């Protein structure tokens, strides 16, 4: 199964730079890029107090469930979601085929502004992600697994 996602330093920096700009230009609290299976990929803003792992898994579950509803209704995927809280609002959108963009914002920003900036960021993220997929499919990057031995794997469980 070649649907493995691989992330390299160079692309991560590019993704993070896009998130930084989005976070700043939209006055957002935080921006997360999450893959559809629930793994956090990149983040920026006030993330120290966030449980990024849980947030990523739940957001992916939410998007998967919403996507399931869409296909039951013979809709193409719903493009985005917005949840309004008392203090924090959540904007969720799908970028390309396999990535989710999550923006957390408060009264310092607005849905209109977030939507506008997300559109721009999504286009840029798509380009980087496509390049990333090509790079990892080309497979000419050294794989960490080529060096791992069965003993390494066994040792992980010897405690």
């Amino acid at each position: 199964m070649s649907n493995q996602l691989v992330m390299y330093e160079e692309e991560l920096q590019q993704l993070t730079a896009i998130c930084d700009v989005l976070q700043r230009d939209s006055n957002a609290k935080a921006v997360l890029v999450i893959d559809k299976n629930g793994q956090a990929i990149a983040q920026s803003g006030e993330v120290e107090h966030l449980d990024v792992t849980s947030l990523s898994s739940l957001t992916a579950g939410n998007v998967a469930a919403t996507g399931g509803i869409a296909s039951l209704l013979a809709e193409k995927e719903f493009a985005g979601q917005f949840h309004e809280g008392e203090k924090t609002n959540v904007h969720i959108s799908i970028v390309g085929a396999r990535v989710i963009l999550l923006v957390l914002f408060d009264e310092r920003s607005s849905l209109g502004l977030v939507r506008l900036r997300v559109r721009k960021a999504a286009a840029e993220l798509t380009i980087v992600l496509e390049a990333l997929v090509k790079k990892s499919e080309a497979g000419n990057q050294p794989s960490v697994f080529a060096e791992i031995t069965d003993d390494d794997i066994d040792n992980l469980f010897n405690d």
Partner: protein
Amino acid sequence: MSFINYSSREINCKIVYYGPGLCGKTTNLQYIYNKTNPEAKGKMISLATETERTLFFDFLPLSLGEIRGFRTRFHLYTVPGQVFYDASRKLILKGVDGVVFVGDSQVERMEANIESLDNLRTNLAEQGYDLDKLPYCVQFNKRDLPNSAPLEELTEVLNPTKVPQFEAVATKGVGVFDTLKAVAKLVLTELKRGS
């Protein structure tokens, strides 16, 4: 779908616990959660009904240690076992790297076990996976109950392909970590094989 992050030096994998309603999937994760050091685990999330039946999934992120400078992180999920939650089960199987089938040893749950195992195969196939090619283990849970079926019978019916299998009493933790380690090892071995 494993996620290898060369930047943060992490290997992330997804393991799904599958099986009929009430077989003990959530109990497996709860035991693992309770027995794992705080620094090696994240929060356990259970999306459950008021009667503690899994509604969508349980989620437990675990860190199992390092291999050649890479942190190995496993995301454990359970599916809701009740038959009518099939749409949710399909969603949770997406991107899976390894599967544990938890069977309920009680004689009267045999049909439910068989149905769930068939359902697992079907749902995987729908997404282009073949259970026989995935890292996969079987756990026979609730071995403590007096009405449990003999091991030979369970093996014959629920593990015809003879993948690694474990007897368990998830409430007491018997067999829980053995099962987890076995599937985690198969997942890493498969990643190595595919590289």
